[in-house]
């Protein structure tokens, strides 16, 4: 395939990333810094997973265990970043009280977590998809068994979902972390495991992995709305919450 297909896949995979960056993150300098922080922590987790993969030889071909270990690192660093952020937040609040005029306003937690998740999701897609996609700019494509849709298109849709999922996981995870809610935190880890294992279906089947990841993303989105609705962390607002006007007024 040529560059036409290459750019088509880039647009498809990064559609949510472009929109959120343009309409949310780019509006606030602190959000940009947070998103870079999110990317950096995700890359650190990838680096740790790679070291782990390297020092334990039996792990090198045991793909399910690689996925499990890598997710443990990713989630550990996600919550590590949250704890740093919570500490910094206290400082930010103190600073805001002391000094009224700051360069840019301090973002609220929901937008901050969208930015952190955005950073992780974009780093994830850049590393795991764009590096592979580069080969797609040549004449060849790759098709999984009995499939007439190129695996690069399947993976573009999955990258789309993973960028959205990382933002949602960040929102749910932060809420769970701050409110010490083990259910919310484990939902993040379990759906992450689930989504990652679904990508293993790509080689065997045509589109099954892809459609299940899309369904999972819709499910996690719905759960996020549910989490936000009753959230004290995201007290500023709740996403389309038509019946929580009371909370907003508080």
């Amino acid at each position, binding site marked *: *395939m040529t560059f036409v297909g290459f750019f088509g896949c880039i647009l498809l995979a990064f559609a949510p990333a472009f929109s959120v960056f343009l*309409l949310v993150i780019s509006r606030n300098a602190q959000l940009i810094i947070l998103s870079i922080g999110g990317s950096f922590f995700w890359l650190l987790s990838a680096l740790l997973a790679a070291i782990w993969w390297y020092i334990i030889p039996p792990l090198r071909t045991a793909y399910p265990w690689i996925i499990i270990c890598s997710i443990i690192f990713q989630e550990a660093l996600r919550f590590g970043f949250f704890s740093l952020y919570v500490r910094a937040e206290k400082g930010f609040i103190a600073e805001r009280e002391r000094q009224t005029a700051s360069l840019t306003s301090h973002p609220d937690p929901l937008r901050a977590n969208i930015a952190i998740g955005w950073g992780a999701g974009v780093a994830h897609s850049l590393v795991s998809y764009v590096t592979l996609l580069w080969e797609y700019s040549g004449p*060849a494509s790759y098709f999984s068994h009995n499939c007439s849709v190129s695996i690069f298109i399947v993976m573009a849709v999955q990258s789309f979902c993973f960028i959205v999922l990382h933002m949602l996981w960040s929102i749910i995870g932060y809420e769970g972390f701050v409110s010490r809610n083990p259910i919310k935190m484990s939902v993040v880890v379990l759906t992450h495991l689930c989504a990652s294992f679904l990508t293993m279906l790509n080689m065997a089947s045509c589109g099954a992995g892809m459609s299940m990841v899309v369904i999972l993303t819709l499910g996690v989105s719905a759960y996020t709305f549910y989490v936000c609705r009753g959230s004290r962390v995201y007290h500023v607002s709740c996403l389309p919450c038509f019946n929580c006007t009371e909370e907003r007024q508080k």
Partner: protein
Amino acid sequence: MWATTVLLGLCACVSIVNSAGVYEHLYTSVTSFPCTRLANTTNLIGCTSSKNGDAGELWPIQSEADIDDFHNHKSRTAKIIVLSPSLLNAKIINKLYSESKIAGFIVSPTGNDTYPTSLSLEEEHPNKKYGLYPNSTVVWNPKGNTLSYDQIHIPVYYIPYTDYVTEGVLEKAKSNAHTDGYPKWGARLSSWMAASGPTSTCLRRTQCDPLGGKSTWSAIGGSIDQSKDIVLLVAHLDATALFHDKAIGADATVSGKVAAIVAAKALSQAYRSYGPFNKQVIVALFDGESWGYLGSKRFVRDIQSFNCKQRGATEDVCLDPYSISMAFKDIQFDKIDTIVEIGMVGNLQTTGGNTTLYAHTDNTKAPGSSALPAFFQAAGQSLNITVNDVASSHSAAELPPSSVMSFLLKKPIKSVVIAEHSGPYTNPYYGSHLDDFKNINSDHVTRVAQLIANTVLTLAGSSSSNVSIDANLTSQLIYCFSNSFHCDLTDRYLGGGLPVYPTQYTGVWNWGSVSAQSKLAHDVLFDVTKSNTTNTACSTASDCAVGADCIAGNCTYGWTHYHDALSIGLDFDYNGGGGYIENDEWDKNGATWTESRWDSTVLEIYQADSPSSELVVLSFGVVITLASMLTVWAIGRYYPFSRS
């Protein structure tokens, strides 16, 4: 900032690690042999791809009917044609290329491995302008379609039948033609050739190297007795084909050179058994003969006039002008009395137990030659070989293209060319990759070697005229040269490590290195004519005492030498950094062929998506991006993201 740097750095590292693995999943490289590019003093020939290779969907053309089907198909995507060898000619290639969008050709045999009735990509009169009859009208190779000398602007590759992938490629092409849907199979042919102009341009730009190699010659019995007249037994060492890696030339070259080596062994034994001959016998195998008689022309020039200005450390080498061996100084050109050349002798006409050979002479250009066929006829009688004197039945007969021409151009010397054909070549595959081991009969070659050995003994005035022939050596040599380089003889003499597929292509000349086929011929010839072998183990000649060479791991004494086969229009500038100097022979000598340099040649097979699906993906990508913008904006209506 540092975080961004680390981020980018990590991305780069991961991408390098990932890409290597993915590439191998997308592209399968196939054992294949490219058509490469050559240059002579006036133009370029052969094939080249574009710099990054040419890609297209596979499409089979195995018959004339397929060509019509292809034209009716009317596809706009570039195609790589999987072509049957029987259709390999300039007319079809140019017709397909000019009428359709074709990115390249893969020549692949049809599944059942049947050869076409004939295939010759050579000229009708090979090497005519470099030979004795530049204005000749004789057609020696009527089946020749001269494709090897055309300039082809797209890559052409050959896939050998013996490789298991061959049928796969043809089947993939057929499945492309029989199904409308995607994915389809594609191929990318990368064989970019650096040469951008004729020899003098590309040598100056160091984009090419001169063709040539090392001839090899041996004085039978001992060091040359300069008082004696010389009987010279000559054969070609090299062959050519469009695909140089498959220039097997079993009949074209292997038959003649094997007969010469085996005859040399018999002559050497006769010398030892019956004592010295009245005349000095020399056996010479000339390299680069396919490219305007490079080996024989330089040999003739050197034995006529060679003035070494600077000897090398070993005394045998001359550095200025460069020559790998100075042993030829013992040969006096004027002492050459008779030349016997063995041409194509791999597949003789046979009726009952009787085989027929033809002796070609030209009594006008070389007076006295007409007496020579009688010697062969006499020797043939006891061997059931009928030797026909071609000149007696054809008025104004010419010699077939042969190395003796290089000698006759300088001086009339009695000479004869022994061959399987009386007029036009009977070898249907002359100058193509199909001239392989199936096109040659080991038994015929043994019989020719016997005839040649007996006749040369008579011509040289030996007391005996019947010697025993090593038929086993014949079949071993034929197997090595035309079937597989992985053979007993290469293990013994070259120590293995060679590619499987043998080629007789001369390659590019290099002052210090010798091609595998040239070294094998040299070492076997050395071994069968040697004086004695010492027990000193060695790996190269420098491990041995002066005068000895390293043959099959032992220091051996003998009278076999290399001689450079490089265009006489070029001098190698050993002292001046290894360039080539065009000398005063340059303009007169068109035979200054050079081979283009290249980085790598590779044929890759892959699966491709339809070009329209790319546009679908692109438009889908745009729509999804706009939709996500709208969604984020809509959510922002409830939750004002942009508020500061």
